[in-house]
């Protein structure tokens, strides 16, 4: 994955607010990365662009040698579905669907047949250690369990990148540790994991920490611990 001179400006005409001033970033497959920075530094915008939720104003974004600079909404939806697995701070599970159905949902948009969907969702829930909670509704699960359902959902489509936005922000420290360990495990299996966080502790689990400040990368260091 390669980002070159990514700029993002919000607003039009007289009220132009530049958020990203030119980001150059190369991420190899299998890396475990934390993107850090104070609020307003542009880390959320960068995450949105990496996750195809937003498009850059200028610059190039290349994923698996696929140019994704200027593409249509429809194409963005496909890229999100195929390449990105999202994990959110607030979990964002669909409240009326049970764990299994929540995990299945990206496969519906990918056009996977029902039987296969069911099977893959089941495997993923087993992988995150929730094989006994498959038919539970989100409000019957604890915070940590909810986040694990969300991780299973992010994994089910075999995405190129797991993109986690403050994955432990709504969890207590003990549960946070479990979730981080799960992410480490997934990374060790060869998946690219990118975490957006402002917590040093969370970042310490990763191998590479990128710090943003006012729309520019100010620090990019290997974390050897």
């Amino acid at each position: 994955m390669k980002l070159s001179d990514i700029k993002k400006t919000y607003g039009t005409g007289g009220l132009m607010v530049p958020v990203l001033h030119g980001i150059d970033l190369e991420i190899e497959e299998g890396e475990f990365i934390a993107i850090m920075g104070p609020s307003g530094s542009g880390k959320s915008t960068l995450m949105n662009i990496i996750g195809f939720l937003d498009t850059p104003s200028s610059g190039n974004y290349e994923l698996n040698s696929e140019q994704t600079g200027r593409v249509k909404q429809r194409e963005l939806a496909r890229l999100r579905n195929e390449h990105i697995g999202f994990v959110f701070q607030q979990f964002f599970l669909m409240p009326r669907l049970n764990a299994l159905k929540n995990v299945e949902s990206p496969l519906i948009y990918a056009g996977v047949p029902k039987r296969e969907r069911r099977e893959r969702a089941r495997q993923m829930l087993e992988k995150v250690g929730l094989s006994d909670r498959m038919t539970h509704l989100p409000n019957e699960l604890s915070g940590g369990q909810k986040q694990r359902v969300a991780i299973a959902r992010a994994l089910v489509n075999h995405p190129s990148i797991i993109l986690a936005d403050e994955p432990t922000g709504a969890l207590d420290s003990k549960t946070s540790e479990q979730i981080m360990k799960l992410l480490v495990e997934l990374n060790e299996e060869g998946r690219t994991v990118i975490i957006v966080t402002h917590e040093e502790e969370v970042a310490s689990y990763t191998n590479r920490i990128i710090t943003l400040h006012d729309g520019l990368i100010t620090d990019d260091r290997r974390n050897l611990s």
Partner: protein
Amino acid sequence: MSIWESLKVAMSSIWGHKIRSILTMLGIIIGVGAVIIIVAIGEGAKNQIADDMFSTDENEIQLYYEQIFLEDDTEMMWVEEPEITDEDLAVLREVPGVQSVLGINQGWGMMVHNEEQSDMTITGVDEGYFAAKNIEMLEGRPFLARDNDSMNRVILIDSVTREKFFSDGEDVIGEIVEVSDNPYKVVGVYKSTIPEELLQYDDFASGEMLMPRALVSMMFGNREIESVSVIAESPEIVSETGQLTADALTEQIAPEDGMYISNDFTQYEEELNSYLTIITLFIGSIAGISLLVGGIGVMNIMLVSVTERTREIGLRKALGATRGRILLQFLIESVTLTSLGGLIGIGFAVAATFVASQLLPFEATISPLVVLIGFCFSAFIGIIFGILPANKASKLSPIEALRYE
């Protein structure tokens, strides 16, 4: 996501808000129900009128003379109708589409026999009458050509008259009966053509009788042919044939002060039906306004639902849902809502129509076509009033939607 998938999502969302869904559907339920009930009652009334007024002798049509008054006539003068002869009838028989032409006249007479007496209708007919009107002879013989030619003093009585004036086993044929002080010989009995429901009225209670046309003319001082009855080859061409024969008769006789017209009942029926249709449509469209109001209610609730589910929409987009899929999902939801309302409305209408049929003097009829139209229309309302909210949902930016609290 298949349509079936979307439908299941829609159903679970409707089921998740039962009271709200029912209230939203109410406008559609009432609208579809009211329209179907009104159309059913209108149809029922139409059928009843058609049965009551227009169902007899559908391929028969009468020709009448109509005097034409000129606008500058200061005095309206009734002019004697021109005479019609057998020769004129022969001309009418040549008109295309005509099966037979009957010349008929009518008289009233007091029949006295076996110490019974009754005022009765006497119809003067010729020998062609029996085949043309499918008269069923029960005893004796119908009239023959010679009865008219030589003015035989013969009569035919119908089954009602026979029952009134004669006992069951009594031999009727050859009996002499007295009608308005003149003796006639009974040569046959035919099955009465008086509709059963009319027998309770005095005028029909004693039945009717037939006499040779020439005889009625002589005995009662009528013109020999008072009215002309045309029987068309089929009911479909009866109006047309009536028109053609009326014109032919006008041309043949060439009266100075008038013309012949046909009493085209089908025309009245069409006219009456079109009035009923207009009334039904009028009341129906007032009921239809409820559908419009219902549709706006659906739109309102769908907009609320889009706002409530902003985060769900954002999430679905993040998971790879395209604009089209979000649009389709919300459209299917609103169509499901209104179609369900339509189905419930149809159910109510069927029940209400059943009850109405018990209370009304006629049976209200629900036609499958109206039900189908009602259902399709309710689904159509779902599409029309669902587009705006669905479009709004599909346009949400996933970032904004996920940030929405």
